[in-house]
């Protein structure tokens, strides 16, 4: 066994890898939440259910239509995004002028409904989805064995998050989004169809959760409560990063995954609570979050 200062390096790097994997999912999910919150000021409690829907959709597509992982990676996020578009258009928009508490409750109820439907149809024990052929191997590194699929998840998540960040912070479309967040009424007066942007943005944010779901299917079991288990942690991450901060959501997502992984190695008992501990500390020291703008 390779040790350094009494630390089992295989174990440490193993947990770091698990942390990075979890962090990749945290980043994708909190990014979607941050985008939706930033533009619509809606706290989308259905984000976890959309992630679950993505995983189930990938499983169903393979099972009944023979659609493989790679095709699902494209089709499922689009389909889940479409669910988001319909949800925004027909459920959220009619109550858009009410207190935000209403939309929060609505998305929460929607999540419970979806979860209930899938529990009823497929039980709660979880289904398995096999890792695609091309990614079944692995690489032996000095201190650890890195399975290809896990490396793929980390890379894909970083690329998707990076592209999304670039799109929002550096392009004209992103400028519309940022400006629309600040002053939607003036954007309308400039001739920009803000309601359309809002719908598409909601769809995009939800689509990201669908993508995370497909990527998660081969490594976590596909079960109706996979989303709700994750959602609370993801909310904590969005709060730590700063509500609505795009870069903050990405970096905090990855960072918290790593911190969780390290805690699992050094003091496993605290691994489930460490993120909330960080949240409490951050809220006490910097209430707007690490990357949030002070009001």
């Amino acid at each position: 066994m390779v040790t350094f200062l009494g630390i089992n390096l295989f174990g440490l790097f193993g947990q770091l890898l698990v942390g990075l994997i979890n962090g990749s999912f945290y980043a994708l999910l909190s990014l979607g939440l941050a985008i939706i919150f930033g533009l619509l000021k809606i706290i989308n409690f259905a984000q976890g259910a959309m992630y679950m829907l993505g995983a189930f959709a990938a499983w169903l597509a393979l099972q009944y239509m023979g659609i493989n992982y790679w095709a699902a990676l494209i089709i499922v996020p689009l389909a889940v995004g479409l669910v988001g578009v319909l949800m925004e258009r027909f459920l959220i928009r009619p109550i858009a002028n009410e207190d935000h508490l209403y939309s929060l409750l609505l998305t929460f109820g929607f999540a419970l409904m979806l979860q209930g439907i899938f529990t009823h149809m497929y039980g709660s024990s979880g289904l398995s989805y096999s890792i695609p052929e091309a990614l079944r191997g692995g690489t032996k590194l000095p201190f650890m064995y890195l399975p290809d699929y896990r490396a793929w998840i980390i890379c894909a998540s970083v690329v998707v998050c990076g592209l999304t960040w670039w799109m929002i912070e550096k392009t004209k479309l992103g400028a519309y989004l940022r400006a629309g967040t600040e002053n939607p009424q003036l954007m309308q007066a400039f001739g920009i169809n803000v309601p359309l942007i809002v719908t598409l943005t909601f769809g995009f944010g939800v689509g990201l959760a669908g993508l995370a779901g497909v990527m998660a299917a081969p490594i976590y079991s596909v079960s109706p409560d996979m989303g709700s288990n994750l959602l609370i942690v993801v909310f904590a991450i969005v709060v730590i990063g700063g509500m609505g901060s795009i870069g903050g959501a990405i970096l905090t997502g990855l960072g918290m995954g790593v911190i969780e992984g390290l805690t699992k190695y050094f003091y496993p008992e605290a691994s489930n609570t460490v993120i909330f501990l960080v949240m409490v500390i951050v809220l006490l020291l910097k209430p707007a979050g690490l990357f949030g703008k002070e009001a």
Partner: protein
Amino acid sequence: MSTHREKLRIDDLHAFYGESHILHGIDMHVMQGELVTLLGRNGSGRSTTLRAIMNMVGRRSGSININGTETINMPAHKIAHLGLGYCPEERGIFSSLNVEENLLLPPSVRSDGMSVEELYEMFPNLYERRYSQGTRLSGGEQQMLALARILRSGANILLLDEITEGLAPVIVQKLGEVLVKLKERGLTILLVEQNFRFAGPIADRHYVMEHGHIVEEIHAHELEAKTELLNTYLGV
């Protein structure tokens, strides 16, 4: 050249914010190339008139005809595309965008908008500070940016709300020069203004508003004769 000499015609316009009835039957018109001001005390409904034209109020009724198109039932985001550029009282510079992004933000509503180079020539300060955060600019620079961005969009009917408010005299003078230049280019301007010494010499006509009504229309040549009357309305 447009065939509609009348760029803007408003008939019996009523506007509401929730339960409050703000505009009570406004009738007015602005011709191509005219510079018309809305004068009046604070709260007389001048800003609301501009906002009602842009469909930014709660509810409105009556008729607003822009370039020959009736817009009273038109969604807000389509109105600008008739060639309107709106500059709100609070200037509406976006803090999450830098100066150049702010400038490029409004989509083109007509094809012959001013180029970025032309605008930087007109407002050299904006060029120097093009990568600064929009709201880091001074009040005067923000006002120039707010004006420049609707000029780039190609809008040829400008609705400008209190553009000189709180600005230093030298900047007010610069804005006056810019408005005269725009008028020479044939742009149509509806100006809400408090500063009568600014608006008086450059405007063709004035509408005076009180309690959501238009109470007086004054042509530039009548100005001297009606100064007394105007002063009573404006309370100066």
